């Protein structure tokens, strides 16, 4: 019995020793004999360490039917790197890489990198496509590694690029949102990147709470914008055409739902392609629609008119004697054609865009009330969800010289951002109530919850009656004056106003032959679904905004009516025969 037991013990011992020997020999072959081969094979693994792969939430456009289309997402492909210590034949390697990866560094730079034998890792090509990357990996070039790479990709290229923004390296070594929505919502879009590789059991013992309820899932996610890609593309196309036709310095436009402040299109020209920023200057990367201030000219007159109506100092039937020019504090203020109209009612101030009439309303209104209305309209930032919002230049509101108020009444001597202007003019389309313009409607959290953002903050500025009366004047302007009355749409009421402002010369005066053109309109006039603000800066060989922007505005109106199938609001009987 005892002998048999010893025999068994020895048998087991011999087996253990045998297994140990087998493992030892196997390790020798793996680590010593074939060590280099395995090291190179490991280098060529497609999936590199996950923590190094860039990850970030998506930004979506919203189609009119509610479907989402990516405005910013991630692309995957490969990067190519070399290990100079094991790269035996740099010339051949470069030839093979250059055949496949068009984005590789120059021949000289490649050879210089290959000569640095103290380095083990030099990246030589980025953003190689999936197919080409796999083709290169299959060639198994010694000293060449093909590694998985992800990067930010903007499927729309230049579509809404200034609103979407960019990601790039900031002061640290991480890619972060630098401009536009990428910057404002960086906290939501950024990913820590370690969630894939945590050890379940380690987490179980050390951080059980986080395992059950992941705090990051409650703050990381994707963002859904209000931008409609078709409308955005149409606006961008129209602005590009306009700028090229008149050689403008820049042009811009905003299309917004005046009832909610949701922006459907937000464009300026020139812009840039988010996927190709090599030759893009820093000035283009910002958003002129929120950062730059302009004197908008006569599109300010509806604000002055509504202030006068709301304050009760005028009615639509009030008349004044238009003399063509007036002198205020030794400064002369004239109508655009310097002609006198005689005694005329208020609506003619809007229909004929009369500076003398607007000045008369401002005088009737008084400085205190004028200051109060315009401070409410322009005294605060809009708090739109874009960075670096500019502040309006309202210095003249603090003065007591009447000529300054007269100038402001027709949009000179007061400079505001385009987004402030569309917010203020939106009050006319929204019963006198000012809404908050915004670009993002919701955040889709990784936890699966969709968090709708609250943009319901409103500021009552005018009474509904005053806004309605000014809207009537603006609607008559389109029906009777715009394009000589040919712009009238029989089945749709459209309210609009043109603006032509002289550009400042930088020395306290204005150019006589350089202008800033603006145009605002909304429709259907008495229950508006869209408000459109357009501008073009310093167009050449043209004086009036109706000539430059009228056609663009009407193109957008007809496009929106067709695209959204906006039902007619006039021009046919609303009751059907029995």
């Amino acid at each position: 019995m005892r002998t048999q037991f010893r025999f068994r013990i020895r048998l087991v011992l011999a087996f253990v020793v045998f297994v140990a020997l087998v493992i030892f020999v196997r390790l020798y072959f793996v680590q010593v004999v074939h060590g280099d081969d395995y090291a190179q094979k490991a280098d060529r693994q497609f999936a590199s360490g996950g923590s190094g792969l860039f990850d970030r939430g998506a930004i979506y456009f919203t189609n009119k039917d509610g479907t989402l289309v990516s405005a910013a997402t991630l692309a995957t492909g490969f990067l190519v790197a070399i290990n100079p210590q094991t790269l035996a034949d740099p010339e051949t390697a470069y030839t093979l890489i250059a055949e496949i990866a068009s984005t590789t560094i120059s021949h000289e730079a490649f050879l210089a990198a290959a000569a640095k034998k103290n380095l083990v890792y030099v990246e030589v090509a980025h953003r190689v496509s999936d197919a080409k990357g796999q083709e290169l990996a299959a060639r198994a070039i010694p000293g060449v590694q093909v590694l998985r790479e992800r990067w930010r990709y903007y499927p729309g290229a230049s579509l809404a690029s200034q609103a979407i923004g960019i990601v790039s390296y900031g002061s640290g070594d991480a890619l972060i949102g630098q401009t536009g929505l990428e910057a404002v919502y960086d906290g939501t879009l950024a990913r820590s990147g370690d969630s894939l590789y945590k050890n379940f059991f380690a987490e179980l013992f050390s951080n059980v709470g986080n395992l059950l309820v992941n705090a990051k899932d409650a703050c990381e996610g994707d963002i859904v914008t209000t931008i409609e890609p078709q409308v955005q593309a149409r606006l961008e196309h129209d602005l590009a055409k306009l700028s090229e036709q008149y050689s403008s310095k820049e042009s811009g436009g905003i299309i917004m739902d005046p009832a909610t402040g949701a922006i459907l299109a937000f464009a300026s020209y020139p812009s840039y392609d988010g996927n190709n920023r090599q030759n893009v200057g820093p000035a283009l990367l910002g958003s002129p629609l929120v950062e730059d201030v302009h004197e908008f000219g006569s599109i300010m007159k509806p604000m002055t008119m509504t202030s006068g109506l709301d304050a009760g100092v005028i009615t639509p039937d009030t008349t004044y004697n238009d003399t063509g020019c007036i002198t205020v504090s030794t400064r002369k203020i004239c109508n655009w054609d310097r002609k006198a109209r005689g005694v005329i009612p208020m609506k003619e101030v809007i229909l004929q865009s009369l500076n003398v009439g607007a000045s008369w309303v401002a005088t009737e209104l008084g400085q205190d009330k004028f200051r109060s209305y315009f401070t409410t309209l322009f005294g605060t930032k809009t708090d739109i969800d874009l960075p670096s919002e500019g502040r309006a230049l309202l210095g003249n509101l603090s003065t007591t010289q009447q000529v300054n108020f007269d100038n402001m009444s027709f949009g000179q001597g007061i400079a505001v951002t385009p987004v402030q202007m569309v917010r203020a003019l939106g009050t006319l389309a929204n019963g006198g109530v000012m809404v908050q313009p915004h670009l993002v409607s919701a955040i889709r959290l990784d936890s699966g919850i969709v968090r709708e953002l609250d943009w319901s903050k409103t500021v009552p500025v005018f009474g509904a009656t005053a806004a309605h009366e000014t809207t009537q004047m603006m609607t008559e302007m389109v029906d009777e004056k715009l394009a000589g009355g040919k712009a009238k749409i029989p089945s749709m009421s459209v309210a609009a106003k043109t603006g032509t402002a002289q550009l400042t010369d930088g020395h306290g005066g204005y150019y006589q032959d350089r202008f800033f053109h603006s145009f605002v309109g909304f429709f259907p006039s008495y229950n508006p679904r869209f408000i459109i603000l357009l501008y073009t800066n310093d167009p050449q060989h043209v004086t009036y905004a109706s000539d430059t922007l009228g056609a663009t505005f009407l193109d957008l109106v007809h496009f929106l009516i067709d695209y959204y199938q906006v039902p007619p609001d006039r021009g046919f009987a609303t009751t059907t025969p029995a």
Partner: protein
Amino acid sequence: MPNLRLALPFSLTTFSVSLVAVLAVTYIGLIAVVMSYAALTVEFSQSVKNDEAAVAVLEGKYLNGVAHLQALDYRAAGYTAPLAKIFVPATSMTALR
């Protein structure tokens, strides 16, 4: 003095060896589960990202098509503007019943 030795119905050595064996197998099993879990997570994640990238390429084509469509001059393509548009007042759903 009474004999305090515990009388067990099985060998303590056998029990301990069995316990060690079970624990060892469990440990190896858990390691295998963790490794498999991590590998599958990485694989699925990469697969999702690859699919998202493929969708992004399609979205790029779609948005490029949208831009092309908006820039298209339909008159140059041989189309003409409609001579007239006739709008029909919408009939309420209740009237259809």
